[in-house]
């Protein structure tokens, strides 16, 4: 289902990839199976431990970063904020997935869940991550405590980072793309005393594929999160007032999203030609505005014909499907 990961590596800051997946773990042992599976490379000389690489998802190369923050809310908050800062771009469609272990009062040891509600002990604020991506594991609420505890809630989970993760990560992307995937590491009958780094790695390992499947669902959503212009409409250098410039930019933006790339190129050339043809510099802005307004007005489609042709195509495809055509 998922393409093989590529060995190609990249630094945390640089990316030619339009999609980013940030997997955030408190401990290295929680991330180990993911790092191995995706063949990520450790980055040197960074404040937090990071592992970076590319992952092929549905013909796209996704830049994956695994960040190890350390245990607790402060470490998590600092780590997420640091990564967002070094990525240093407005990635409004980055996926941020917290992956780790949690105690649970109801679920069995080794059971995975996605956090449906997260609340920390420092704040009364509750986070309900929007559940849009398709999931194959159960939901559960999770309380984030400030110290390990063997006091389990009757029906929910406990951890030390999820609340801080949501609080900070939601500032950098769409809420639908910020999620937490937990695996139960301790329960009322099997407390935290048995946990070592090796045991945690063993608990996480069987769920590597499930984490990646969920990541993939989030990445597919992320593709639709932000619309990109088809091409850049190049505005010629002309004399214009601030207000005229704003109007020209507004029109340019509309057309850059609506027209196919080649038509935008053509429009850019036309604007240049028009601006050069005006003898009075002061008139150039208005001339270009009128020209762009006409172009915008022409965006209205002829639905009648397009519906007729769509109906015809549909009818033809039905005939073909039935083996007549």
């Amino acid at each position: 289902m998922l393409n093989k990961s590529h060995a190609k590596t990249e630094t945390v800051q640089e990316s030619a990839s339009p999609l980013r997946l940030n997997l955030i773990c408190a401990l290295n042992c929680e991330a180990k199976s993911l790092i191995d599976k995706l063949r990520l490379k450790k980055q040197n000389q960074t404040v937090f431990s990071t592992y970076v690489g590319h992952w092929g998802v549905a013909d796209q190369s996704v830049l994956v970063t695994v960040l190890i923050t350390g245990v607790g809310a402060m470490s998590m908050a600092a780590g997420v904020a640091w990564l967002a800062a070094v990525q240093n771009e407005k990635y409004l469609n980055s996926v941020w997935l917290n992956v780790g272990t949690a105690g649970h009062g109801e679920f069995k040891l080794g059971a995975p869940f996605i956090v449906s509600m997260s609340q920390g002990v420092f704040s009364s604020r509750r986070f309900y991550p929007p559940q849009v991506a398709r999931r194959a594991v159960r939901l559960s609420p999770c309380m984030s405590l400030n110290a390990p505890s063997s006091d389990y809630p009757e029906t929910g989970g406990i951890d030390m980072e999820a609340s801080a993760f949501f609080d900070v990560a939601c500032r950098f992307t769409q809420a639908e793309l910020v999620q937490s995937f937990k695996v139960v590491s301790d329960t009322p009958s099997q407390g935290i005393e048995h946990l070592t780094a090796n045991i945690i790695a063993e608990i996480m390992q069987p769920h590597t594929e499930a984490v990646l499947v969920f990541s993939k669902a989030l990445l597919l959503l992320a593709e639709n999160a932000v619309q990109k212009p088809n091409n850049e409409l190049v505005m010629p250098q002309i004399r214009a007032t601030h207000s005229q410039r704003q109007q020209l930019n507004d029109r340019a933006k509309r057309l850059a999203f609506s027209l196919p790339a080649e038509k935008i190129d053509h429009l850019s050339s036309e604007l240049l030609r028009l601006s050069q043809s005006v003898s009075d510099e002061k008139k150039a802005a208005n001339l270009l505005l009128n020209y762009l307004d006409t172009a915008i007005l022409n965006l209205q489609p002829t639905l009648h014909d397009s519906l007729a042709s769509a109906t015809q195509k549909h009818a033809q495809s039905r005939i073909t499907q039935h083996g007549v055509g």
Partner: protein
Amino acid sequence: MVDTIYVENAINDHTRTALVLDRYPKAEVVGLEHYGEVFNSSKQNFRLQKHNPSLILAAKGGKRVMPTPAQYETGGGAHYYFSHMLNCVYDCRYCFLQGMLRSANYLLFVNYEDFMQDIRSVAEQHKGDDKPVWFFSGYDCDSLAYEPVTGFAEYFIHQFQHIDNAVLELRTKSTQIRSLLNTEPQDNVVVAYSLSPESIVSAVEKGAPPLSKRIEALKRLQDHGWRIGLRFDPIVWHADYLQDYEEAIPQVFESLKPDAIDSVTLGGFRLPKGFYKTMHNLHPEHWLFNAGLTEEEGMVVYRQDIEEQALKSVGELCERYVDERRVFAYSSFNAKEAEASGGM
């Protein structure tokens, strides 16, 4: 199919909550204190949530029945609206809900009894009026599209039987009319359909029934004895819109008994500026938000020449079939109090 349902703790034991949850045995239920924690939280993306909306069950507090803007007249007396649900199963590109709400999740208020109490109280205030007081449903959701789950029409129609000075208007695009066909028609209920030519349905009314199905539903309702209304609102302007409306309008009226149509309303595409900005950011590539629009007193509307021509020409097409006194056109340029295009 809804796979996540949020339920306010206070309505866990409400009968209607249990009925709705029974419809979705595979959905996971998440408890919450107040629906606003999910519905109004920041950084939500309406466009993304439309891929897989969750359902929120809650109780509506505060004001449940609101007066409509003055221009929204359909021949009745005082006009009010109420919303038992926010958001819609359809995905119409022009719908103002995308600009008004942060979330695309379906928010269903299960405390119908409280809504009815408020409706009765408002009706009581208008007891001496010449004309009945009109209550619209379907501004913030489709009145019938979710009927098998909500049982909304079934409950409210029955309740309106006992208010003799009130009319209930159900605005819809849906063909979920079974509960209406199983009920004796009532004089004080109007089922009003939002209609658009097939080309517009196909281009901008994603998920909504085709025009032919809506006409079929209207015909069945009218034959059964229900009062019906027609809403060409918004009229969606495009290069060959007139040709489309010239085909659609005879198709509608010739399938029905025009004399028995309660009212016909028309309006152009119009939005408060803030809603428009949000919607344009969600769909910057869509022609609907890019052609023929202008700003008028805080509203984004079709240019005056375009809107006037659209209302006039579509209005004239309707007046071939019904008396002009039953055709109401909402102009963005005459109205002192302009409002957003109807959700339905």
